């Protein structure tokens, strides 16, 4: 193919994403250094206020007071995203290993059922848990029916329900990359391990896990990134009372009308996620060489 026609063919994709995704990201970066317009949008002068707001609040007499509220929200979001990643890893690794151990037909079938939820509306997948967890929901009704409780248990609107929703949403993202690395393991390595009298645990620790690690890292990045910025699970299952970054950003553009602060928060999580991705890209080739 000619160089000219290559450029012609790639330009629509580059222009569409460049203009409508990359440039807006830089505009948001610019907005984060502006002053909030109380009617939405931004105005002069250029200031660092949005970033200062992460840690401080401007008091009536214009002095800065340390307020950890936003830092708590950010830390809580990080904690929930990390917890989601760890739980998805613990649940996803055995499933991926089980699928690898099956024959060709069953592998395909199982992969199909693991992939399918990814394509189902997250809004609806999250809503299902309201039906199950709310006061008049399935679990509470069952518990009362069995006479185990007479007051409904507060299962919804806490960190646990948010975590459940996040794990439910992102679990497929963990299974698939781990599966694709485990699939490439040479079965002879495992057989050799067992022939040398290693038990299942040692074979897992010394052979399977080291070879699965690149997939687990990829899966961890794929779960962590969207979990950190998630909006629906915290909003619907957390009741919107306990804020996470995703809802906090959304609020700055709706009810709070503080666009610079919302832009600054967006830039912050984008940077965190890019760092995670870079860390993964940087660690992956090294592993490949050693394996």
């Amino acid at each position, binding site marked *: 193919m000619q160089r000219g026609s290559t450029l012609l063919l790639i330009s629509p994709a580059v222009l569409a994403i460049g203009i409508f995704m990359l440039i807006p990201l830089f505009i948001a970066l610019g907005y984060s250094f502006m002053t909030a317009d109380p009617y939405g949008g931004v105005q002069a002068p250029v200031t660092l206020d949005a970033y200062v707001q992460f840690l401080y609040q401007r008091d009536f007499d214009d002095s800065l007071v340390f307020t950890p509220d936003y830092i708590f929200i950010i830390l809580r979001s990080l904690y929930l995203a990390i917890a989601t990643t760890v739980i998805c890893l613990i649940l996803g690794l055995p499933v991926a290993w089980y699928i690898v151990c099956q024959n060709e037909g069953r592998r395909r079938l199982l992969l199909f059922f693991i992939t399918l939820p990814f394509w189902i509306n997250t809004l609806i997948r999250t809503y299902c848990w309201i039906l199950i967890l709310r006061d008049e929901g399935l679990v509470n009704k069952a518990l009362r029916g069995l006479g185990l409780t007479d007051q409904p248990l507060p299962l919804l609107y806490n960190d646990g329900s948010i975590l459940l929703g996040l794990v439910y949403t992102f679990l497929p993202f963990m299974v698939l990359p781990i599966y694709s690395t485990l699939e490439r393991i040479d079965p002879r390595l495992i057989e050799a391990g067992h022939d040398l009298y290693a038990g299942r645990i040692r074979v897992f620790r010394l052979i399977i896990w080291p070879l699965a690690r690149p997939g687990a890292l990829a899966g961890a990045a794929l779960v962590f990134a969207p979990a950190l910025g998630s909006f629906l699970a915290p909003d619907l299952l957390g009741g919107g009372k306990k804020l996470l970054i995703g809802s906090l950003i*959304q609020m700055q553009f709706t009810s709070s009308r503080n666009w610079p602060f919302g832009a600054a928060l967006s830039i912050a999580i984008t940077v965190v996620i890019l760092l995670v991705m870079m860390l993964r890209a940087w660690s992956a080739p090294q592993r490949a060489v050693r394996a």
Partner: protein
Amino acid sequence: MKRRPFHWRDTPGLPSFTAAILAFLYAPLLILVVYAFNASRMVTVWQGFSVQWFAAVANNGDIRSAAENSLVVAVAATIASTLIAIAGALALERGTLRVGRGVVAGLVAMPLVVPEIVVAITTLVFFSMLGMHHGLINLIIAHTVFCIPFALLPIQARLREMGTVLEEAGRDLYADEWRLFRCVTLPLLMPAVGSGAIMAFVISLDDFLISMMVSSAGSTTLPVYVYGMMRLGVTPEVNAISTILLVISLVFVASALLLGRRRRGPA
């Protein structure tokens, strides 16, 4: 007691663990569907099978206009993103991008990496800065952009998989580039184009967060409307419309995955 011979492929407990995970993934969806057919207005009290809530949803004018918006946006975004993806995949797999291939590939994958909430608000900021308030047009542009990688990935994978042998044969027979594309590459690519287009369609139809931030009063899409209903509480109507959306996604994705499976055959 007779012990089964040891085999490393059979880890004890793993089959039931996997079954439990699959149950965890699917039971909530099943519960939703069952509730949607419940005759009672009290969602959790079973009073017999009924399709009345589906009828109520079908007769709700707001839901119908939201569904129309969703369909218009999804069809337009699917066509645009699939065309862009075909061209992009050809350039990435068959083109001569000596420098910058990595940069281009990274840029095209951007919608998969940047968190949805960030895409949503940056798009909102961009449109408002330009003073673009065109309702559905804004939505179509935003959807096209984030659908590109979903349409592109299967097409790119297929191009890589089928190799260049047939295209080289065509070139040897003096086909020009356009004829080669029309008579050789495109027909071979069609299953992947089909599955890419369906994926883009489903992703667009299901999108909530970006649509919520970008849409305006007249251009509400179905998920945004349903979210508004959910915020008001659990009702049988929400269960019914959610079930409809669920079934639509399932049908489309199952067909896309089946189309994708066909490409495993000989190129």
